[in-house]
């Protein structure tokens, strides 16, 4: 079971990385979301194998599953959810402003790279 989950983490990271390297914003966001899922799954796996629910008196403490990584994963899920929502709003704003889904070039950077227009401007 853990092997399947470990493989799932790997696949999520791999597809996430591939998507983040794309030029379209929506793909980048989906890629980040997949990596976030991979990271959360990894947190869960860090706690070791499954155990019994953490209720005092219902089982021996040694059989409990480790609650800390679950709490960590929960926090991480909330945070990545919020940031992804913000990113979606931002990309929608970008769409409204430009009607284009590509990640834009930095104009000043391009200008400096070509360099000529700058010197022409100074004259």
């Amino acid at each position, binding site marked *: 079971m853990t092997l399947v989950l470990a493989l799932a983490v790997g696949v999520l990271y791999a597809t996430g990385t591939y998507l983040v390297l794309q030029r379209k914003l929506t793909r980048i966001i989906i890629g980040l979301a997949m990596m976030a899922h991979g990271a959360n799954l990894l947190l869960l796996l860090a706690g070791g194998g499954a155990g019994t629910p953490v209720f005092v008196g219902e089982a021996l403490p040694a059989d409990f599953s480790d609650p*800390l990584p679950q709490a960590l994963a929960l926090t991480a899920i909330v945070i990545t959810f919020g940031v992804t929502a913000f990113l979606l709003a931002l990309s929608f704003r970008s769409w409204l402003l430009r009607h284009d889904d590509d990640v834009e070039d930095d104009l000043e950077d391009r200008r400096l790279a070509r360099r000529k227009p700058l010197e022409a401007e100074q004259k």
Partner: protein
Amino acid sequence: MNLLLPMPVILPLLGAAVLLALHPRSRVSRVISVVVTFATLVASIVLLARAADSGVLSADLGGWPAPVGITLVVDVFSGLMLVISTAMVLAVLVYAIGNPRTDDEAEFFHPVYLTLAAGLSACFITADLFNLFVAFEVMLTSSYVLMTLGGNKAQVRAGMTYVVISLLSSLLFITAIGLIYAATGTVNLADLAVRLQEVSPGLRTALGTLLLLVFGIKAAIFPLFFWLPDSYPTAPTAVTAIFAGLLTKVGVYAIIRTQTLLFPSDGPSPLLLTLAALTMFVGVLGPMAQNEVKRILSFHIVSQNGYMIFGLGLFTVAGLAAGIFFIIHQVVVKTVLFLVGGLLEDSTGTSALHKMGGIMHVSPALAVLFAVPALSLAGLPPFSGFVAKLGLVQAGVEAGSFLVVGVSLFVSLLTLFSMTKIWSGVFWGKIQPEDLENRPKDEHLVTSPLMTGATAALAVLSLAIGFAAGPLFELSTQAANQLMDPSGYFEAVLGP
């Protein structure tokens, strides 16, 4: 439990909650944010004084002892960072209030700004790797909002790069935490330091490198700095100033904290020193080609962060002390420079060097305000940068790292060149834009007394750091001693 410890986080958060209920443009909300920030500053100063007096302070939230509960720790290093960051937050807040355009550019500036302050403080006082992640996220999420509050095209474009890069580094951070927890079964820093000793050296190096990568992105060190000069200059001045002064320094703080506590090294670390040298050098080459005040200054953030890593990389008390002193000097100087850059932009309507000129004849005060931090940044005596760099060079020579010392001196020279480039472009020459002298007074936003006052106060503070370097250097040395010998830290967190 020491109730004072969580105050630098609780006060601004409560303030932000109250502000959300009020009208964002009202006078009351401005008064509240200033009062809250001032109270936070007082709390931070008291914490620093106590930490310097009686050693490391700690508090277990909810009464659960470490490593089970959430622990907060203030030692001299975090105390210094708390004080200096809250002081900057206060000064920039006053500047933002003085700027009549803040409310138009950023409607909900005050509550978000206070949340940012809370996140900053939380980064410095947490003693737990996962809470460091949460504190980072509080800080970063507020910074995303602040950066894009204007919602214009340039901000959305730059904000997108910034958010994606930051989110990526946060995901790496979660990954690092997951792997560290799997290897050791704890996220409490003091407990981790003990348990990491039992982990195999190869795994420890891998985890250390992963954490360095995560914080390296936040601290914008070589080769992970590319996002910074691209995204910082587009935000409103007050926001850029606080980002430039503080956000990357939090990354540096996290690097110093984790490297000294979790992955201590006996001698100079070749990896960190190489990264430091490359960061300094590549960072200073960037501004050569640039033509905009804020972009030039943004590249210098990268270059100057290299000096701090240099101080850490030596792994000696002298090196760390100089590095910590350098951070404090740098936070102040960088914030002033960006504020002056904002004043220039407001009075001329541009930030391109070739469109400005002769500002010295129009506003000599502005020229002085720029000259003080600029010379300090380059490290000329008697300014604070000189003391900081002297300390680093001495520590470097003692440790025998002559190559990095040489690089750092050469980079200082190039920094000076870059500052003179701004100086001759902006302050000398014939007055540009041509109508600047004849404009009606109310278009001279420089005359806003709060903005100039806040900038001047910080310039004076940077002078004070230079002239009264002795006591501050003693504090930095005390902080460095605590970092190099963390027994006090362990005792405060885990008990005797």
